[in-house]
């Protein structure tokens, strides 16, 4: 048996809320408005993940260093994104460029000036 007993909330109620959030995240994008899609899909995903971590994984009942450990790993993910994203998302930078991207951009600009 576990050394410490965890406080157990009404799990069925939490599950029901998660299901309602799932329904919203599926139906929200059907409206077709971009910011509604972003909020219902990704905003609600964050809320659902938070609810699972807090209520099912009982992260609040663990030693304080556990959430710090997990958050540190999440920060590494953001650091990775910040470091690599410019290389992936931009056509050129300091001492480097993607010729095919620059050509495509030039072509698009040309077609914009002289549409067929």
């Amino acid at each position, binding site marked *: *048996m*576990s050394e410490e007993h965890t406080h157990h909330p009404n799990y069925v109620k939490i599950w029901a809320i998660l299901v309602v959030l799932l329904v919203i*995240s599926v139906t929200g994008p059907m409206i077709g408005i971009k910011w509604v899609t972003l909020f219902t899909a*990704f905003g609600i*995903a964050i809320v659902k993940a938070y609810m*699972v971590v807090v209520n*099912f*994984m009982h992260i609040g009942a663990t030693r304080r260093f556990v959430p710090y450990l997990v958050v540190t790993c*999440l920060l590494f993910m953001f650091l990775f994104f910040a470091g690599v994203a410019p290389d992936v*998302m931009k056509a050129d930078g300091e001492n480097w460029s993607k010729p095919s991207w620059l050509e495509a951009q030039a072509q698009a600009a040309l077609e914009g000036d002289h549409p067929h």
Partner: protein
Amino acid sequence: MRPVATTRSATGMPTARLAVWWLIASEVVIFGGLLASYIMHRLAHDAWSVQAAYTNTWIGAFNTLVLLTSSLTAVLGHKAADEGDGERAAKMLGFTMLGGVTFLVVKAFEWTIEIQHGFTITSNTFWSFYYSAAGLHALHVLAGVVVMGIVAASARKNEELHRVELIGLYWHFVDIVWIFLFPLLYIAK
């Protein structure tokens, strides 16, 4: 004599639980890196939305419901283990395993259809990410189901009940990964 992982708690918590949280933290980096790569490529390539339009939202939503429900049964198993009811804990883990197997069967069905339509891991970068991310996640589901079977077998005999919580922690993490994969692969079109 009980295992060291159960009795030792130099950090103020049982070593076994610390080990699972450590595993989860390392998995955050693995899946986090994968998802961050997907997001930056997706933002850079508008054409990916054309490919993403072929994923089936309803299948993804059904699998999300299955995993959310399996997380519920996993945590109910933890509660039963805390109450010393090994038989009920094993039963709840059995339901969780059923959820995991259902998820994998639906995934196999979905992938079969997609492959039959010509969307394979080498079709283009979107599908490479799709199969890599969902495949790595599916392997975690499979591993969870296998370990859960071992834990349930001992829980049924009222032995090592602390393990019910530990496999539950892992399972909830697998659920959380899918919570993020679902909008990324199925909703953002």
